């Protein structure tokens, strides 16, 4: 529909918080020039040096891990090399126990970790935003029901459920992403619920109801677009969290299983070599830190851009 395309023309913004440059943030002073909120957000983000650097690094890295393997010509099914060969021009990070090229493993692990992160984020964000918005908007029974579900996820730790599922079904990357997504939505729901509660009091929501808008329309056309800033920032943080959580799960054997892989799994298979073959530990470790660090910086920049009054954490 036309309206959706039109509404994407502007960048998202916080409702009711008319962005005004405040002292001490990286948003910069926009002077007297008149800019839309979307432009302000974009401009503040572009001026956030750490976030822009992080974004550049991350984009380059993502391109690298997806494109480089095609040119390097390693195949992970080619296991002719011996066990634990030292780094050489042929294998810059050496080989692992079965003779696979560790560099390629790290590339592929990064791919899977990123895919898990993205899948998790999409699922967590969709569930979290819908749950949170409906609860905050409809309140009463819906709110109570969502609260109970959130409580349920609070008392059943991620590790337990992931363990049960993955032990029972097996650990392909998408399953891990799915499980993580089903667990990491609660913080997003909490934030969006609070925001929907506030937004629901605003007259434009009542105006939509007075016009006969359905709940679904109010949620999707009014509430969600008005909290896009919160959503984007939280989605970013969820992405970083997902990459780290996946690594932790894989480490205790409750995450991704071979033949799929992930940085957590690569790390897990090689961390014991830290003392003797440090590169086997540091390569996947640095990859994880690189990904989550850049995403955190981007999230930080986005937060500043959307809501300059909120100080960075």
């Amino acid at each position, binding site marked *: 529909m036309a309206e959706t395309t039109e509404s994407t023309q502007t960048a998202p913004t916080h409702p009711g918080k008319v962005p005004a440059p405040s002292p001490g943030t990286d948003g910069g002073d926009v002077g007297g020039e008149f800019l839309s909120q979307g432009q302000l957000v974009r401009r503040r983000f572009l001026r956030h040096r750490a976030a822009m650097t992080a974004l550049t690094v991350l984009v380059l890295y993502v391109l690298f891990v997806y494109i480089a393997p095609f040119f390097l010509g390693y195949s992970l099914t080619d296991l002719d090399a011996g066990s634990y060969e030292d780094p050489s021009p042929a294998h810059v990070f050496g080989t692992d126990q079965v003779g696979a090229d560790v560099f390629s493993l790290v590339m592929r692990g990064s791919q899977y970790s990123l895919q898990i992160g993205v899948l998790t984020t999409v699922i967590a964000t969709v569930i979290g935003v819908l749950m949170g918005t409906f609860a905050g908007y409809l309140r009463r029974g819906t709110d109570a029901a969502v609260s109970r579900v959130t409580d349920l996820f609070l008392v059943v730790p991620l590790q337990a459920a992931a363990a049960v599922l993955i032990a029972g079904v097996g650990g392909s990357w998408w399953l891990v992403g799915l499980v993580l997504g089903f667990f990491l939505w609660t913080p997003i729901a909490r934030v969006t619920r609070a925001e929907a509660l506030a937004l629901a009091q605003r*007259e434009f929501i009542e105006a939509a109801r007075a016009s006969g808008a359905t709940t679904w329309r109010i949620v999707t056309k009014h509430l969600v677009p008005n909290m896009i800033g919160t959503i984007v920032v939280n989605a970013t943080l969820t992405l970083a969290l997902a990459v780290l959580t996946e690594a932790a799960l894989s480490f205790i054997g409750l995450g991704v299983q071979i033949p799929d892989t992930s940085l957590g799994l690569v790390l897990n298979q090689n961390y014991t070599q830290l003392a003797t073959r440090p590169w086997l530990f540091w390569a996947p470790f640095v990859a994880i830190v690189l990904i989550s660090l850049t995403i955190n910086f981007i999230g930080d920049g986005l937060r500043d851009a959307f809501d300059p009054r909120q100080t960075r954490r």
Partner: protein
Amino acid sequence: MTAPASDATTTSDGVRDGALLQVRDLTTTFPVRSNGVFRRTVGAVQAVTGVSLDVDAGETLGIVGESGCGKSTTGRSILQLIRPDSGSVVYDGRELVGLSAKEMRPLRRELAMVFQDPFGSLDPRLPVAELIAEPLRIHQVYAAESDLRARVDELLGLVGLKSEHRNRYSHEFSGGQRQRIGIARALAANPRLIVLDEPVSALDVSVQAGVVNLLEDLQERLGLSYLFIAHDLSVVRHISDRVAVMYLGKVVELGDAAQVYDNPRHPYTRALLSAVPLPDPSAERRRRKSRVVLSGEIPSPADPPSGCRFRTRCPKAQQRCADEVPLLRPSDAANRHTFACHFPDGDADSAA
């Protein structure tokens, strides 16, 4: 309940059958929950209590009262934006109370609303065209996108905006312009009745007149009925055919604008009117002597006073006011003016 009649007839209780909108004994409360373990409902805020009024086709009914008197809740209860507890709202012969959201939806085409806050009532994320088009999209008024766009442009013209404005966002407009957008949105689906909830009170005085004139103009051109809610008595007098005065959830006086303003019977109406500054300084000075000054706070609607709700602040209050709830009673033979007071102002028939 009442058969639809082509002509409004006035009955003895001061309201007329056959009007486009008939509100009878409308009561809306908000529950007060305990902080106990099970959060039982322990009381109710009586926002609207037993309100009866009606609006004829093409007529403007003004509702005035202090803030917190329930006038906005009345408007929202009529439109079923807030579910009333009891009473009846008959619009064009159809009972609205008890309709599900789904059953209500088609009726919303004909019942529109304009809000007080021109900043808060427009979604900042949508361009003007989409704001105005929303009711059209909801009710699928037009099959073709081009028709819809033409209608939006038409509406923009109708409220005095340019069609070039259609892709701008509400924050790029002034308060008066935004209210015009709000009005255009209300008009979009061709409603018959519009509830105007303090449509000009948030605007600069200089802009108010323009918007009020626009509303009058539109009423004339489109044959609309208005339920005009405001606390500004002069604006209400200007635009209304009839006026209802509300105090603490109840209608205390209702009648033709001229009668209510010129011959207020209820002490509260008097007090309200006497607070309005007159444009003529000498008239103002003269009036000051007879001014009724309200003392005390408005009582809590969760625990309203017994009998007459106004008695705690009424200079004429007597024991009877605490014991007996005053009913609306006619002030004139034509039943065009009713009030609820045991000891009314004005003429001498205060004995009843």
